[in-house]
């Protein structure tokens, strides 16, 4: 069905309705085998519904989903979740409260002979580093440990696809980061294809090969993390992923935009930019890392707020025409509020929105 021969999970124009309300429309993306995708969006954007549609807990109302070239969801047909071989890690972990750690991991291995099931469960118990907690009950585990058990339980039956629904949202920040790395390496080692849902861009950047940004049930952009950050397709994606501000600008040619900070050259992206014409008033995305602090620069801006972040300061700067930009500056450049400091621009990707 898929035109790309190497794609493994394929969503084509997927739509989803609850009763009469449309929650998802026209979602299309694909993943290759072993790739990790991430659905990113604010709460209520439909990302969990999309995950549940892939898992088979919801039936699609338009379009279709194929996994390994088998159609698993299409209008009027939905392979039941228990037949899909799709593992899932839930936001609340959903460990079985009456089973200990090893029995939780072994739960999905009931089709294997006992000996083999035990070995497989033990293997994953080792992989998550909880051998000494084999007999512990779920309520005796910390949040991070429960999370690992949930992951092991989902991976043990070696599913064709693993889905993770906000897997780190109940953990504290430090743990999120370290566990994120662990999860990525475990998924890569087991060559598991996975789709994760999150509202946290850092999680998405840490784990995903490809990221999709959703808003109000529509997939705005499906791209690599780098492209999502540096070449967002619209102001929402730009604003949702990473920090940044919009400067007023005017198109002086199709490839050149003039702002208070100067003129910038940009690449025209076919399809996306068809609506921008010469003379249009536009918004230009300026990321904090686009602005470099240089004491002797002729271009000056006034510090109006500063946040100490250890290695760097995040300065909020005001330009002469009262527009504001953000700048990341090494923290030994300690400037006071209301001080005028020199800045220089280094923009690799000029992004312009109407």
């Amino acid at each position: 069905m898929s035109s790309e021969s190497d794609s493994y999970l394929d969503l084509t124009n997927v739509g989803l309705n609850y009763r009469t309300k449309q929650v998802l429309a026209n979602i299309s993306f694909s993943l290759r085998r072993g790739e990790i995708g991430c659905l990113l969006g604010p709460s209520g954007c439909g990302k969990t519904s999309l995950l549940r549609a892939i898992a088979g807990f919801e039936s699609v109302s338009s379009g279709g989903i194929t996994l390994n070239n088998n159609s698993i969801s299409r209008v009027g047909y939905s392979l039941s979740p228990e037949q899909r071989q799709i593992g899932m890690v839930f936001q609340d972990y959903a460990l079985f409260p009456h089973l200990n750690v090893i029995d939780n991991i072994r739960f999905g291995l009931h089709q294997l002979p006992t000996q083999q099931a035990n070995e497989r469960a033990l293997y994953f118990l080792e992989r998550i580093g909880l051998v000494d907690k084999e007999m512990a009950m779920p309520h005796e585990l910390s949040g991070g440990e429960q999370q690992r058990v949930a992951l092991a339980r989902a991976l043990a039956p070696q599913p064709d696809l693993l889905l993770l629904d906000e897997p780190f949202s109940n953990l504290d920040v430090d743990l999120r980061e370290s566990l994120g790395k662990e999860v990525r390496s475990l998924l890569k080692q087991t060559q598991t294809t996975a789709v994760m849902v999150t509202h946290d861009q850092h999680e998405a950047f840490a784990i995903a090969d490809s990221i999709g940004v959703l808003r109000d049930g529509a997939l705005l952009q499906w791209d690599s993390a780098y492209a999502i950050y540096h070449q967002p397709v619209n102001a929402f994606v730009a604003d949702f992923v990473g920090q940044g501000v919009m400067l007023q600008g005017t198109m002086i040619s199709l490839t050149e935009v003039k702002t208070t900070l100067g003129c910038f050259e940009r690449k025209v992206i076919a399809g996306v930019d068809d609506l921008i014409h010469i003379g249009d008033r536009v918004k230009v995305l300026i990321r904090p890392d686009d602005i470099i602090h240089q004491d002797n620069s002729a271009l000056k801006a006034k510090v109006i707020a500063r946040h100490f972040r250890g290695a760097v300061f995040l300065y909020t700067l005001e330009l002469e025409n009262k527009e504001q930009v953000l700048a990341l500056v090494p923290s030994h450049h300690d400037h006071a509020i209301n001080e005028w400091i020199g800045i220089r621009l280094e923009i690799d990707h000029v992004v312009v929105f109407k």
Partner: protein
Amino acid sequence: MIDFKRFSVWQFFLVIMSLPTALALVGVLTSWFNLDEALLSHLFQYVLPSALFNTVSLVIVVVMMTALIGVTSAWLTTICDFPGRRFFVWSLILPMAIPGYVMAFALVGALEYTGSLQTYARDSLGILAIFPEIKSFFGVALTLSLTLYPYTYLLVRNAFQTQGKRSLEVGQSLGLSARQSFFRVSLPLARPWIVGGSLLVIMETLADFGTVAVFNYDTLTSAIYKSWFSLFSFQSALQIASLLLMFVVVVSLLERQSRAKQNFSYQRGETEPSSRIVLSRVQGYLACLFCGCIFSIGFILPIGQLLAWAIPQLSLELTDQFWRYVIGSLSLSLLAMTIITGLALLLAFAARTEKGRLVNWAVRISTLGYALPGTVLAVGLLAPIAAIDHFLADIGFATPILQGSIVVMLLAYSVRFMAVAFSPIESNLLRVTPSIDSASRSLAVSGLGMLRRVHFPIIRVGVLTAMVLVFVDVMKELPITLMTRPFGFNTLAVRIYELSSEGLWQRAALPALAVVLVGLIPVIILMLRADKGQQS
């Protein structure tokens, strides 16, 4: 489409489940459409004034006594330390195991002028009267208070446990004496629990049938029974029932409200255990004396009296007839237990599968029966049952099918005890979150496999609790059994009632002890829980 079909089956079931309760309520309320002038004026002139006055005054005094006993003993055993405290923590729950109709004749037997205790005092000690007349208003109130104060005690103990000594310390840090902070901080903080316990006591007092019968004290419940079985006016019975129902509705609405407040306060409460107030020597002995008195009169005395009656007669009383009552009671309780737990399981699963207003109402109505006094329920259910029998007769059945059959009795039990079975099952089923279902399905375990490997193991304790509670409640139940049993059908409870109303207390002692023994099971479970709470 398949989903839709299942949807309607569960909904249909939910409606069926709430039907008996709804019918009983309608049966009671519609009695006013059928007025008989002569009977009504008889009711208003001779029956209702005294029954109403008796009921209301009994409720007031019992609530005051239970609150006094319950709050004091809860405070002493939870916050203070005195000799024997650890013993009283659990032993003060024990009177709960004795049904009111047993407590009543055991206490009267022990404490009346010709009773064992007073006779002993007169003959051996030369004391003429050590106790005021027991067969009095005071006697009824005391008996009911002794069987019912554990409700207040348990709830208020819970309140004091969660607020700990901290509330006292807060008061003291703001310049109040320990005494002042008890009355101005601790007690007001515990108010939702005190009110909750008292409202339960009011409901039980309104519903009581067996205790007042022993004292020949006429209340609304006995008026219902008498207008039916002595006056042979089913209509008047229903009309009195509707009056009682009014009280019950008000009280149970208040109870629901107070429970919401308990939840609120509980979340803010400090759960850390705090060191206890050590009472002075004299205070300690007084505390011990107080708890000792309650425990002696509420448990030792009635049980001692029952044993004193039963043991000499044992060989005479352990007849085939006695065992028939035992077997009758056991098999009835087992049957009711199986049916009610089964229905409660279905109800809990239906409520879990379906969401929405219809479900909430259906569950609320099906579990409403616990608030309805057995007498009200019995007469309320008989009206629609009689109507169904009329209909069956019209289409050609010769004799009444349902009236006087065990079906009516089981139906009444189901209405009355559905909540008892439903709440432990439901609270366990809440642990099975929707994502646990999804997790199981994503691991290729669904349908019956999921029921067997996930749902059942998680709710097992809840189901067992439900079974025990229903079993014991049916065993102790009196008015429903008395009023709806098939002709000639006897249980231990009915036997006790018959013997004690004929004044044959000695003979009633053995079946009474058997009922108390069964009643101890849930009390022991409660005590184990109270013990756990104490350790933490």
